[in-house]
């Protein structure tokens, strides 16, 4: 029990470290908010061009796109920010401290995921709030409060993919371009900014093979009331949980193997 508490305290210290560093750059949250707000503004005006087809009105597409942008913020935090954070630690030599600590690199890396996820979830909620307040996006208030646990569930479902990308950083050191590629591919097939039914038939299967699709479906339903085309809220949540449960063990094994291999090759501190 004492060891569990000490492990939790060590992980919390990493989260606190990241929070201190983040807050030491005073304009950072503001710049992230402005960036999100500009994206929302852009899609508001793009949505004015969208009438008919899959959407009954321009506002329907605007709400669709806003939730997509919000979920994309969380996905980017997972697939880009965490691997980049580990690479940054390698560059500055601070990863070595995690490696020689009793806490160890696996728990350390898991803890390093927490703050970026939390920050991205907050940014996503602010983005949605901005769209509602400034552009009058209709929010389904009766279920909107469930968006937070749903976003956390989505984050957990993205975590195994983030761990795989981080394992790649340990092995090949550079995965910035690869992370961007994966985010783009997942966004393309998951219906983040346009409905999946517009995709060619031969690629639609890919929308079911990754957690971004149920994450955006679930959040759209909870935040703006968009019906889930393929099942219920509980089914979407269940699929996210299943992605997390099935992918997490192999992702952690892959991370452990990458660390073990880098120790064996002597490349663990290289960058």
């Amino acid at each position, binding site marked *: 029990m*004492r*060891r569990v*508490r*000490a*492990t939790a*305290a*060590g992980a*919390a*210290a*990493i989260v*606190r*470290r990241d929070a*201190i*560093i983040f807050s*030491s*750059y005073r304009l950072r949250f503001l710049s992230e908010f402005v960036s999100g707000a500009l994206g929302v503004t852009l899609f508001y005006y793009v949505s004015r061009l969208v009438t008919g087809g899959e959407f009954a009105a321009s506002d329907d597409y605007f709400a669709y796109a806003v939730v997509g942008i919000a979920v994309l913020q969380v996905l980017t935090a997972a697939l880009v920010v965490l691997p980049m954070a580990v690479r940054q630690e390698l560059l*500055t*030599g*601070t990863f*070595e*401290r*995690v*490696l*020689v*600590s*009793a*806490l*160890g690199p696996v728990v*350390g890396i898991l803890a390093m995921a927490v703050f970026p996820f939390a920050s991205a979830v907050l940014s996503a909620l602010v983005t949605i709030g901005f769209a509602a307040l400034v552009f009058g996006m209709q929010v389904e208030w009766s279920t909107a409060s469930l968006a937070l646990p749903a976003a956390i569930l989505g984050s957990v479902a993205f975590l195994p993919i983030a761990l795989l990308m981080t394992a790649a950083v340990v092995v090949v050191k550079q995965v910035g371009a690869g992370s961007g590629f994966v985010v783009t591919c997942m966004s393309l097939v998951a219906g983040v900014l346009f409905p999946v039914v517009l995709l060619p038939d031969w690629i639609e299967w890919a929308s079911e093979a990754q957690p971004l699709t149920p994450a955006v479906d679930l959040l759209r339903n909870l935040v703006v009331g968009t019906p889930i085309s393929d099942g219920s809220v509980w089914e979407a949540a269940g699929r996210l949980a299943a992605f997390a449960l099935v992918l997490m063990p192999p992702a952690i094994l892959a991370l452990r193997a990458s660390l*073990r291999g880098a*120790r*064996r*090759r*002597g490349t*663990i*501190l290289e960058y």
Partner: protein
Amino acid sequence: MNEGVSLPTAGVADAARSDASEPRLRLEGVAKTWPKQEVPLFAHIGLELQPGTLAVVTGRNGVGKTTLLRIVAGLISPDAGVVRLDGLSPGENRRDYHRRIGFLSAGSAGLYARLTVGQHLQYWGRLAMLPAAHVRSRVAATLELFELGAIADRRADRLSMGQRQRLRIALAFLHEPSLLVFDEPWSSLDGDALELLRAVTADFGVRGGCGLFSVPIGQELEVVPAGRIFVIENGGLRPL
């Protein structure tokens, strides 16, 4: 060194040692060959350090001093051989092994620019999994021992190189390790700080801790008073 303030060492390690006659650190047949290299860096490294022994590893540039220290610190796995600290293996008993290591890499890296001196010590205390109740007292004692109290609230990126190095060394002592693994520790230290390092290290040895320090050849006596000196040559380690 501040009189009356010291860091008790090796408490956890002593409790775990099953046989007091066993060496604290034991290397046996340690071998390492870099990928795509035909000549091994080490072929047969052996070393035993009894409690209280401070040892220097020296040798020409590129003979593998840093690699040997990284192997002892559990950062690099040897191709063959045995590494044991208080009977623990870095591979099989990683957490308890690293609980006993105080590691200092060469250079000045490894600090977070935006964290203060005090925040670094708190952070490391938690990563070292010190009991929560001990972290505050360990941080206070370490600040005093390494004369960092006056700059406890200063960010790392606003420290001089010598202050940074003193903080890095303080981090290695904070969690009461039983083995110090220091790669060229005197870097950037002025005369007073070097004297402080010598005194703290000597006290660490008196209290039963072991130390393995890498220094360039010709500077063996710079850091460690009355230590054993080994030189890496031809893939092996021999007393100098």
